Structure formats: C-alpha cells, structure tokens
C-alpha cells in the first residue's frame, strides 16, 4: 500500500497556509530599501495630442522626485519588434510615454515619482496636462461595414476553417430554421490584486522586477529588448499572483514605467495602478455574433453558419478563436464560419478567461437552444442527436472525448428528466418562475515546451524548480504532488519553486496548458533524478537493486524497490547517506510529442445545467443551481480542479447577468471603471454548484494524460443561464448581460 501516491487526490494547497496568513508575497509587497513611489496620470481624452505638461508645478513640491512623460523619456529601442511580447497580436504595440499622441482614453501620459505613495498620488492629481482633442470612434455598431479579416499574428490564433457543403441551400430547404444576432459588451478581467511592480535597484544598472505577470520570461525578454539590458541584469520574479485571467499575459505599461523610473533614477521604485486604471490595458472585446442554423425533420443539424465581429485597437489586430468551435462541437455537413475585427479608438483587447470560446459558446449555445425549440426537441436530446464523433474542422478523430458521458451524468445529477419543455411551465412554491437551461463547449488541450530542475539533499528533501506561475490555479500544489509521487516522497519533503527568471524556463501561465506543460517537465525531471538515485543505490554494498533497470523499479514510501518484489527495497535516505553526496541534481524538459499528436484532435469538453428563478414582479434573476460536467482528461487534484470549475461557473454567471464595461461614446471612455459599477458576482449571488469530472484516459495529449481545466469550465455557463431565463420567462434575450430591464 503506497502512501506517496498523490496524483488525483484532493490534496489541500501547499501554499494555503501562506495565503491565509497574509505571508504570501505579491508583486507590490516586497520590502525594498530606499523605495520611491510612482503614480500614473491617465488621459481623459480618447484621441488627440498632448500639447503641454506642466511638470514644473509639481516638481516644485518637496519630495516629488521626477515627472516622466514623452518630453523626457530617454531614447529607447526604436523598432516595433523590440516591443513585441510573446503573445502580442499583429500590429504595432503600444509604447507608453513614447510621443504626444493619445490613442485611447486612460492612456498613461505621465508617471509621477515621489518619496512616498501619498505624495506621488497628490502630485499626480495636481499635474496639469493640456490636450488637443480629435474626434474619436469607440462604437462597434457604427463600424459593422468596416470589419476585416485579420491575418495570423498572435500565437494560437487560427483563422476559421474553409466552408464545407452548401450551408445556404441546406438552410433554405430545411424544415426547422433560426437566425439571430447575439451581442455582449466589453468585459474586464479585474483580478483582485492591482497591477503592481516593485523594481529593486541592485546598483550598476542591475534590477530585479517583482511584477504582477503570468509570465516572468515574457516580461524579461520585453524589458531586456526595450531597455537594452542583459538578461542577468534583469531578473523578473512573481511568486504569487492575485489573479490573472489573462490580464497578465502581456507585459503591462506598469512594469515598463516602473523599470523606466528605476533605471533613470538609479533607485528602487514601486508602482501600483488604481482599480480605475485596470480598465485601461485590455479586455474581452465587445462582440457581435450572427448565427444561422437549420435542422432536418429527424433533429439532425442541416446547416450551421456562425459569423463574429469584434473590436480591436487602431494599432494592433487582436484576434481570438470565436467561431471555429462551432465547426467541431456538433456533427454538421454544411458549415460556414466567418470572423472579422474592426478598429476603434480603444486599447487593444486582451485574452480573458477562455478567450473566443467563452464568447463563441454564447452565440452557438443559445442558437442551439432556439433551434431545439423550433424543432420541438428537448435541448439535451437535440445535442445528443448531433454528437460529433470526429472533429470535422480538421477531419481527425478526437484523442479522447467523453462529452456524451458528461451529458448523461450531468443530466442525472441535475434531474433534467423532470423538466417540462414549455417556457413558463415551471414554478416554485413561492410562485417564482423556474427555468432550466443547458450550454457547453470545447477547448484546446495543448502542451508547451517547459523545463525543470530537481535536487535532493542527504536529508531526503527534494526541491523542484521551474519558472512557471501561480495565479490561483494550484501550480504549487499539483507540481509538488507530481514530484512527490514520482520520487515516492512524503509531500512535506518536497518544495516547488516557481515564478523567477533564475529558474528553468516555463511557458506563460495561460491557455490551460500549465498542468500539461510544466507537469510533464517536472515528471521527466524527477524521473531523471530517480535514475541517478538508482545508480547510487546500485553502488551500495549488497544492493538488492544491483541488476535493476530504471523500468524495473518504483519509488514509493521513501524507498526504491523492485516492481516485481516490493521486499527488494532500499531506503532513499540510506542511499543518499551511503553515497556521500550532499546533493544530487537533475534537469530535464518536456516538449509535446508532435508526431503522435498531429493525427488527433486534442480537446476538453463540458456541459452546464443551470436553474434560474425569476421573480416576475421585480424581474430579478437568481441562479439557484448549476451542474457543470467536465471531461478534461486526468484530474491531478480533485480539490483545486473543482475550485477552478466552481470559479469558472461564477465567471459564467457574471458574464450572463452582470458583467459589462459600458462605453460612453461621447467621451470614448468606460464609465463604470470601478468595482462598485462593474458588477461581478458576490457571495449572495452564488448558490449550489456541483462539479462533475468525467475522467478520460488519454495517453496522446501528454504523458500525464491531463488536458487542463482553467477555461473549459466557463464554456456554456452564460448560455445555459440565458437559456434558463428563456425557459422560465419565454423571453429570449440575445444581448448579454441579461438584466432586469431586458425582461420587462
């Protein structure tokens, strides 16, 4: 019986005690000597030019150190490519304080640096900046005709596959048809932690930037290219991130400004943005979707068209995969998918949890509900009749797909068979309307190149290093589990360190690929260390493992033992002591096995069942019950994985009922750029949520068989809620969020 098998167990977070006691250190919290404080001044106009900055007035205040603006920024890298980070879209990246031009509202126009935070904030509030304003355009509705098909540019973007069959003709001839437009506004990530950077000046042009980022390596290469720093002189650290959700994928202007100030002043600098400024550097784009679906008499899909248009900035072509999923989630021979973007005077949108798919699943899954009603079919039955056994976009089999099991298990858990189909046909004891709806989705299972290093000391303590990120997904915990299990050590004997450019390189924390990518690297590295330990064990006198090959032994309960005979074992700590080594090290990396993978479509799936209760007199909507059934390969930690999906459901409820960043087009400015007016769900909004994992065995995606769960859980939630609102009220709301006024 093994006690060191941790993978799959609901292990509590190893970083839990640090987080609940306030000892976990976030970017803006590092205590650094002789610290100066920065405060950003943001543009009140959306387009135009800065004509004058009255820096002298605030520089006269005792304790104000400097005002940085385009007027005094030193010569930096010239070409766009130096400003391109690893996930930059096509175009020309924004450069803060580069020139007098204003490209979007809330653009940073100056950085005030002072001896303390209060003074920097005060001085920033006094800084007079004069502008020459030009006419701006921030309304996507007026730019419908100006949409264009973007080129490739951003990593991970796939233009829609070519059309198949004859969707127009099939639609005309089909007995059941629907067409409609679906809309959601801009949404902002709003992680709880404000974007912040503490730059420690180490003297001699050397810095350490403690930065809020989902990728320390991405930030390092950005800074070194712009400021001409050597990698060794520019260390980037992020040990804990107070939520990212995509907001920290690209290096933000906060890190640029803080490093600029530190290098110029030769002094440590801390810069923390305000909550309002967190609405200035990327968002889920305002998206319009047009769906045109038809079904045959037997309920099979006859035709499917899905076209999307969303905003981007004037300087970059932000892209995400909105419509592609619709060509692979259901079986359909006649499909046409279209995707365009249009330029506005806004900042470039930015990947936000399940980018593209969260939006696309709103359009597709509400449209599927509409067509199910047209065809007189239960929405779940309708999906079962159109189950895709193969990815028709790529014409490949799925490496694994247990979506049908998700449908069945989710329905059973939710009690879907108790549903009556007609809208307004269910009420609770208090007379409130009850609605039940479903929605689901599909997300990529990907693996990125990743490296790790492991060392074990004579006392049996293992340390594993990889420059990955921890933004709440549970990276510390699952990597510790993998390492402990691979080398058969108690979890307490294992320390995993991450978030530092001095550690082996890991990919950005995003795309749901960390478990697959870093996890596989950790596994490989621990196995490499295991082989070294086996060799040492074989040098021991009378070693029972003398003739064993690596595949003949296993590491369990602090021992190396023969698989064939567990009694033939040596204690790991004895091996280390007998070897005389104080430390044994190994490093390794992991790459996706492309040869194996390219024959398959690699995806995770889910289906969400939602119950809403609507008070018809008040129009209030409460999501009272949700079941989210997810098929995402192997689950490494039931506890943290469940939390990820619970959080995704909360996000979906927010998207369905609350979240929208409202643009005042007169000013070209978001008007609800704070937590009081940009509504996210709070505790009172959240009721029963059940998470079901339908496990899939999959040895194609990666050696761990893990597909990632950070994003798939959000898919279909918003649609399920909107569909439930229709079922409850008979009102089909096609522009999210569904708010009271839309039900009246």
């Amino acid at each position, binding site marked *: 019986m093994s006690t060191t098998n941790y993978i799959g167990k609901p292990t*509590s*977070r190893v970083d*839990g*005690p640090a*987080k*609940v*006691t*306030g*000892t976990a250190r*976030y970017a803006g*919290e590092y205590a650094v000597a002789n610290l100066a404080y920065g405060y950003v001044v943001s543009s*009140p106009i959306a387009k135009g030019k800065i*004509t004058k900055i*009255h820096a002298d*007035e605030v520089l*006269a*205040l*005792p304790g104000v150190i400097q005002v940085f603006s385009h007027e005094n920024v030193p010569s930096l890298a010239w070409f766009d490519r130096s400003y391109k980070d690893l996930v930059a879209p096509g175009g020309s990246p924004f450069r803060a304080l580069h020139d007098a031009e204003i490209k979007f509202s809330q653009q940073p126009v100056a950085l005030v640096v002072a001896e*303390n935070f*209060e003074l920097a904030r*005060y001085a920033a*509030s*006094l*800084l*007079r*900046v*004069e*502008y020459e*304003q*030009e*006419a701006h355009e921030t309304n996507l509705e007026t730019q419908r005709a100006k949409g264009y098909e973007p080129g490739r540019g951003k990593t991970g973007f796939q233009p829609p596959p070519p059309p198949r069959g004859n969707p127009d003709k099939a639609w005309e001839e089909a007995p059941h048809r629907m067409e409609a437009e679906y809309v959601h506004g801009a949404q902002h990530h709003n*992680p*709880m*932690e*404000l974007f912040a950077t503490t730059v420690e000046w180490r003297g001699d042009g050397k810095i350490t930037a403690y930065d809020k980022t989902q990728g320390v390596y991405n930030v390092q290469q950005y800074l070194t290219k712009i400021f001409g720093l050597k990698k060794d002189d520019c260390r980037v650290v992020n040990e804990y*991130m*107070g*939520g*990212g959700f995509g907001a920290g994928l690209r290096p933000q202007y906060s890190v640029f400004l803080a490093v600029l100030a530190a290098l110029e002043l030769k002094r440590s600098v801390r810069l*923390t943005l305000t*909550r309002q400024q967190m609405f200035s550097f990327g968002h889920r784009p305002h998206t319009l979707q047009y769906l045109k679906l038809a079904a045959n008499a037997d309920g099979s899909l006859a035709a499917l068209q899905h076209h999307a248009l969303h905003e981007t900035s004037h300087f970059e072509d932000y892209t995400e995969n909105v419509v592609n999923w619709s060509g692979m989630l259901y079986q359909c021979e006649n499909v046409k998918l279209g995707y365009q973007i249009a330029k506005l005077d806004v900042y470039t949108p930015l990947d936000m949890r399940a980018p593209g798919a969260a939006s696309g699943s709103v359009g597709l899954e509400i449209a599927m509900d509409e067509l199910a009603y047209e065809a007189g079919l239960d929405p779940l039955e309708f999906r079962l009749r159109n189950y895709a056994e193969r990815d028709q976009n790529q014409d490949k089999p799925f490496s694994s797909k247990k979506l049908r099991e998700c449908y069945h298990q989710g329905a059973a858990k939710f009690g879907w068979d108790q549903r009556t189909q007609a809208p307004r046909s269910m009420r609770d004891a208090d007379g409130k309307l009850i609605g039940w709806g479903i929605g689901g989705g599909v997300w990529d299972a990907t693996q990125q190149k990743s490296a790790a290093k492991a060392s074990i000391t004579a006392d049996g303590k293992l340390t594993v290093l990889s420059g990955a990120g921890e*933004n*709440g997904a549970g990276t510390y915990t699952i990597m510790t589990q993998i390492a402990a299990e691979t080398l058969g050590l108690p979890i307490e004997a294992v320390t995993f360190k991450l978030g530092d450019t001095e550690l082996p390189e890991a990919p950005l924390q995003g795309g749901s690929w960390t478990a697959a990518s870093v996890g596989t690297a950790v596994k490989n590295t621990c196995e490499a260390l295991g082989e070294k330990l086996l060799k040492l064990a074989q040098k021991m006198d009378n070693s029972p493992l003398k003739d064993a090959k690596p595949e003949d032994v296993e590491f369990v309960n602090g021992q190396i033992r023969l698989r064939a005979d567990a009694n033939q074992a040596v204690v790991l700590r004895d091996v280390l002591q007998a070897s005389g080594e104080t430390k044994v090290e190994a490093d390794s990396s992991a790459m996706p096995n492309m040869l194996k993978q390219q024959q398959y479509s690699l995806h995770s799936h889910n289906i969400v069942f939602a119950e809403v209760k609507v008070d018809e007199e008040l129009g209030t909507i409460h999501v009272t019950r949700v079941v989210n059934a997810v098929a995402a390969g192997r689950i490494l930690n039931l506890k*943290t994985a*469940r*939390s990820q999906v*619970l*959080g*995704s459901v*909360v*996000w979906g409820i927010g998207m369905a009922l609350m979240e929208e960043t409202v643009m005042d087009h007169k000013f070209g400015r978001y008007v609800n750029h*704070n*937590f*009081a007016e940009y509504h996210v*769900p*709070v*505790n*009172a909004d*959240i009721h029963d*949520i059940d998470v079901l994992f339908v496990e899939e065995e999959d040895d194609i995606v990666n050696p761990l068989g893990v597909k990632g769960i950070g994003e798939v859980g959000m898919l279909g939630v918003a649609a399920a809620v909107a569909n439930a609102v229709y079922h409850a009220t008979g009102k089909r709301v096609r522009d999210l969020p569904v708010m009271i006024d839309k039900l009246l």
Partner: protein
Amino acid sequence: MTQQPTNSAASAGGVAAPPPTGPVRLTINGEEHTLQIAPWTTLLDALREYLHLTGTKKGCDHGQCGACTVLVDGKRINSCLTLAVMHEGEDITTIEGLGTPENLHPLQQAFVDHDAFQCGYCTPGQICSAQGLINEGKARTEDEIREHMSGNVCRCGAYVGILNAVKEVVDKESLEPRK
C-alpha cells in the same frame, strides 16, 4: 474639433504644499508602533507601506471590494476608507494577528480545508470579515452568511468554499457560550 481639457483640479500657478508628518501611535496585533506619517495616510497604506504588514490587501482603495478588511476593536472595517491617525488608542487586528502558518486560526484552517480561495489575494480580507461576522453574532444560516460576506469580492469565485469554511467555524463557535 479642438478643446483643451486638463487632468487636474488644480488651477494654474502654485500648488498647496503637502501636509507635514507627525507621530501616530497604533496598536496592531497587540504591539505598539509609532509611525512618522502625514495625516492623510490611510490605515491600509500605513499597514502595507510603513509597517510592511502586507497581509492586508489593496484591491480598489475605494471600499468596494473588501480586500483591506481589518478588525478595529473587534469590528470589521475597510482600512482603505479610514485614516491611520483616526485609530490611535484602538485595538487593530490584521490577518497577521489571527494566526501564523505554523499555528493557524480556526478560520484560516477552515479556509485551507475547504479550498476557500485560489489566488489568495482577497483571502485575508475574507477571513477578517468572517471573524467580524462571528463577533457580530448575526449570521447563522447559509443565506445570512452569504449576505453578510458579500462585501468581500472574490474574483476567483471561491464563494462556495468560503461559505462552507465560515459555516463550519460559525457552527462550532455556536456550541460554545458567547462571550
């Protein structure tokens, strides 16, 4: 179209000098501290920037998110909405005063057990708020706990875990006579 908006409320010319600093005596987690700070320093910034007690978090600086919740004489407040100088002579408890990684407070242990957080940034505020809620003695049902914990936003969406963690401790505490 030409206009000349400006950022600032200040008029052209001279700007008012910042206020002078002075000693502010605070009792935090049972320890006395004397800070030399300007009176416009919030309690939150005093804790984070001057005392390096960074367990108390800044999420909005406007009393909208609850991340900065601390206990003052046992009552939960948003430390971003109050000045440090207003709390001389009061008993301030921050997350650091509730427990340590080696010796967790029952709420901290319950939060770990129920996985009542992900990124951990709102967590100290949630825990201080939960302690305040227990002190208030109001919340007994699940709906009451949800309602009274709704001033603390969790963007990771760990509300199910937070409810279960708080409920577990509330239930345990209710078995003991109230002080």
